[in-house]
């Protein structure tokens, strides 16, 4: 089995940004150029995640299509997907997979519909890793909603046919260049591929996560910023890819 290292491009509207705990976005350029750079450098896949809740998919289809068009790898899209029409537009725009987060809790029947039409391999579910006082939970925790699953409930998701992959995303670790402590210590035996994203900044951390049972990792800030000087934008993934 080969592992995947997936560059993540965060969108704030039509701009590519890097965030710290999904706030304080720093502009890093044109997402179309970024996607092309990562693809040209041999990215396994690319995830494009929209963080701006007011972004209208149908008004920006040409723009979104240009993000995946110039890549030669699988590109997944997540963010503001709430109807079948949204999903259909995204797939027609050139994305191979869709990533659901809030919709998984708010409208699971829609997620099922999508998987019946496009196949479960086209559906990825994203859950935030949320550190509560005495335990870790998984779900959506932001200014709009709070919905969680326990770890046991996560394991039951293995039997759900609506999706094929799980993306565990650490808000706390986002943009911090440090992996979430729970994520790096927990050993996984999950029958669906499981992806971790948040704070990864070195090949050592990546290898450690693979040894913990993750099948893939997502990197945002580490690929966008120069390693030596973390505030300078210089998107590139070869320094990680060449070492794994």
């Amino acid at each position, binding site marked *: 089995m080969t592992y995947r290292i997936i560059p993540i491009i965060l969108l704030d509207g039509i701009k590519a940004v890097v965030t710290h705990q999904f706030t304080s976005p720093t502009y890093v350029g044109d997402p179309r150029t970024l996607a092309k750079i990562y*693809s040209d450098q041999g990215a396994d896949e690319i995830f494009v995640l929209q963080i701006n809740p007011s972004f209208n998919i149908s008004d920006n289809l040409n723009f979104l299509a240009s993000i995946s*068009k110039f890549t*030669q790898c699988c590109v997944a899209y997540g963010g503001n997907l709430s109807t*079948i029409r949204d999903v259909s537009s995204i*797939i027609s725009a050139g994305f191979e997979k869709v990533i659901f987060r809030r919709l998984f809790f708010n409208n699971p029947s829609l997620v099922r519909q999508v998987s019946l039409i*496009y*196949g479960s*391999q086209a559906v990825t579910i994203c859950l935030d890793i949320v550190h509560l006082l005495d335990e870790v939970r998984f779900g959506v925790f932001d200014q709009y909603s709070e919905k969680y699953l326990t770890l046991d409930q996560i394991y039951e998701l*293995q039997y759900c046919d609506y999706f094929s992959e799980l993306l565990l995303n650490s808000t706390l670790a986002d943009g911090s260049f440090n992996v979430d402590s729970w994520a790096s210590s927990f050993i996984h035996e999950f029958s669906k*591929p499981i992806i971790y994203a948040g704070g990864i900044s070195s090949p050592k951390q990546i290898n450690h996560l693979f040894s913990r049972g993750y099948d893939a990792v997502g990197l945002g800030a580490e690929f966008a910023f120069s390693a030596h000087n973390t505030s300078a934008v210089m998107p590139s993934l070869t320094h990680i890819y060449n070492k794994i």
Partner: protein
Amino acid sequence: MFLCQHQQLYSFKYFLIYAKSVNLLLDLGAGNTDRIVFTLSKLNHRITSISSPVKSHSDDILIIPGVGSFECLMRSIHALDLHSFLHDWHAANKKMVCICAGFQILFEGSEESALPGLSILPGHFTSLKTLHCRKTLNVGFNSLYQANGNSFYPFLSEFLLPHRFYFTHSFANTSFPSATNADLYYSSTYGIHFLSSYVSSNIFGFQFHPELSHSCGLRLLNRILS
């Protein structure tokens, strides 16, 4: 019209892509085809879409891209009266390039769907779950290994290990069809060997996605279509 019931709720497009001389892009109703269209355009191959069976030339190539579930693809094929068209295409020994779900429908059936496939090739697809694989989805880059003797198309040996192609599928064919006049290629994942490619005189079938496999996939497509 007997469409997949979910398709009735909204409009979307799935295409059979027909390249080279008369380029026909068949609208089946679901999926991402712009990607393969642009990829083939980059390689200087003209593409045209079709929405129903059409007349064609002997050297035309039909491409069935691979997004969508087995069930929806087969429902669309029946609804658009393409079943005979595809069988006739194969019977006339005209070339077809079939990718992922487009490859799976060539066979007799899949655990994914109650509907049978086209039965152009013998065999069934079983879920990775039923095959007791550690993961229920095979996703990522994997290499090809030749499963049988002489190659129909010697250039395909250039694309074996260490070259890698992008796979994303939950169903696999592990009972390889008997193929005296075809090349079979397999790949390995989670302890099983599965059919990753079937190539005969007129069929280029791939479980993987060459259009998502960087320059390697691009070269493969170019060699096949040239």
